[in-house]
């Protein structure tokens, strides 16, 4: 019974995502808003791979998001004007950075892990901020734009068609989310759950816990840099705020708001958060206070997230 429910939920989510460019404008939204939701949902779901399914608290994911974004933007601007190559390089940059930083922090747990991820995350912020000649510093990296995709037999004009870009982002989203779902159902994913539930027991069973956490960390960061890469392409622009600590907090709040113990939770959280922020920032200059207020209210009143509450209602 449970399984059937789960499947029908999946189908509904995919149908909504696939048709979004057609129903969003009817509801007062716009296609870019949909693209933004998809990009941030990917980032939040990638974070949840680590947070919700491995039980490790990272507050520094913006660094890898930003590395993906900068990697993509710099490839487009300085190397080759090829969208697929830029996405590939951007994602690889984030993955490599995560793989290198991983061994330094995987031995740490809880608050200590969170603090170190925040601190390491800031390194890249400072580099982006201070290395003006290459990264454009505070002004960001502009004067480049995404290129249409050429498949040889057909061309997808993601540059001029918002819908085309939305579907490109959705395709990458599907690829990443599908592989994360696959991984979570594999023995590797089950091991991660075991570590989350009881690390000591997992260790006694002979599971190399640190190595599993490292792998989970790298996978999660790679997916986040893919999201960052798409984010840069979406805006045709990137600036250091993409990798600042408040961005990391945003990913976490999206995840918690939607529900970190459910697979689609972060998607729901990202959608709510982005629509809300879009609405608030168009109505008041002090939107930052309201975003802060969202943080506080979610923590105090919705710690299980939207899907967590729905699920509890359904079972009781």
């Amino acid at each position: 019974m449970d399984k059937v429910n789960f499947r029908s939920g999946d189908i509904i989510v995919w149908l909504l995502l696939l048709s979004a460019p057609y129903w969003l404008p009817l509801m007062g939204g716009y296609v870019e808003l949909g693209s933004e939701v998809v990009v941030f949902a990917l980032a939040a779901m990638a974070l949840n791979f680590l947070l919700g399914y491995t039980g490790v608290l990272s507050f520094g994911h913006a660094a890898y998001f930003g590395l993906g974004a900068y990697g993509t933007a710099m490839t487009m601007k300085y190397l080759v004007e090829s969208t697929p190559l830029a996405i590939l390089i951007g994602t690889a940059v984030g993955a490599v950075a995560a793989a290198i930083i991983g061994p330094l922090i995987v031995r740490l747990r809880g608050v200590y892990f969170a603090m170190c991820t925040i601190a390491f995350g800031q390194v890249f912020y400072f580099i982006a901020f201070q290395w003006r000649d290459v990264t454009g510093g505070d002004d960001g990296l502009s004067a480049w734009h995404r290129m249409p995709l050429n498949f040889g037999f057909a061309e997808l004009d993601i540059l001029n068609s918002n819908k085309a870009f939305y579907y490109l982002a959705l395709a990458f989203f599907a690829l990443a989310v599908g592989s994360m779902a696959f991984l979570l159902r594999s023995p590797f994913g089950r091991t991660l759950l075991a570590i989350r539930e009881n690390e000591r027991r997992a260790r006694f069973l002979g599971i190399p816990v640190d190595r599993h956490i490292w792998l989970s960390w790298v996978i999660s960061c790679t997916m986040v840099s893919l999201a960052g890469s798409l984010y840069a392409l979406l805006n045709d622009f990137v600036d250091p705020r993409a990798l600042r600590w408040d961005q990391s907090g945003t990913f976490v709040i999206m995840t918690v708001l939607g529900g970190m113990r459910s697979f689609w939770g972060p998607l729901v959280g990202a959608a709510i958060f982005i629509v809300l922020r879009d609405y608030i920032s168009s109505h008041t200059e002090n939107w930052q206070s309201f975003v802060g207020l969202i943080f506080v209210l979610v923590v105090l009143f919705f710690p299980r997230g939207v899907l967590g509450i729905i699920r509890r209602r359904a079972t009781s």
Partner: protein
Amino acid sequence: MSQLLFFNVFNGLIIGAFYALMALGLSLILNLSGVINFAHGGFLAIGAYIAYMLIPYVGFWGALVAAPILTAGIGLIVERVLIRRLYGRDPLYSLLLTFGLAFIIEDGTRFIWGAQGLQYQIPSWLQSPLSSQMFFLTGYRVFMVGMVALIVGALFFILNYTRLGLRIRAGTLDLETVSVLGVNVRILRNLNFGLGIYMAGLAGVLAAGMLGLQPNIGDSLIMPSFIAIIVGGLGSLPGTLIGGLLIGVASGITTVYLPAASEAVMYVMMAAVLMVRPRGLFGEEGRF
């Protein structure tokens, strides 16, 4: 060259003292309550702005005494109303809450006092250099270092020789036993939080005298404070103090030889420490 080096070492020491002051407050709260107070930089700004408002009435010295106490009062209320609810829950939630608080405080101060920088008057005799040879050694800088030393000394005195300090130290090791022995842990955590915020407020008053006031004045200090705690070792207050001074001086020295890397050197130190000693220089195995 040697004068330049001396200048930057001294400058690093001042900045390091600030990092240490911030980090000690953070560390106190983290050790006893397991809360990473991301809003610490925000409380620093509150302290500075309260001083800015008080100075026309009570002068610099009055503000130096009153502003941190008022900031601590706000801290006590925040702990009582918001943070207390999150004890014993996943650290994720307290982090998110203080994250939100940091946003609200920064935006709130910008709303009330404006985004542009403000200045306040410090006593003129503190502004003049001590000698013409060492022009950079203004009285205010020396005074700041002295002030930080005094407060840190007072903190360690409280922790080591008063009943409150004894309870805080005991609670850091085993809060449950302290509670069983009849200490009101709620009040203890409340006071401890206030103590931490007091130090943030004081850092704010001192920093604003040198850097001027801005809503995001705490931003540049909070990350180094984290690094100071990580380098010094979680759970160890002397470690935090040394960590703060260490990264301050290191970044001061780096300024002489490679100015662009003055910020990066702190992160390199953190990476190096984590590689050799994952618990930090003075951290103990087993906690956190």
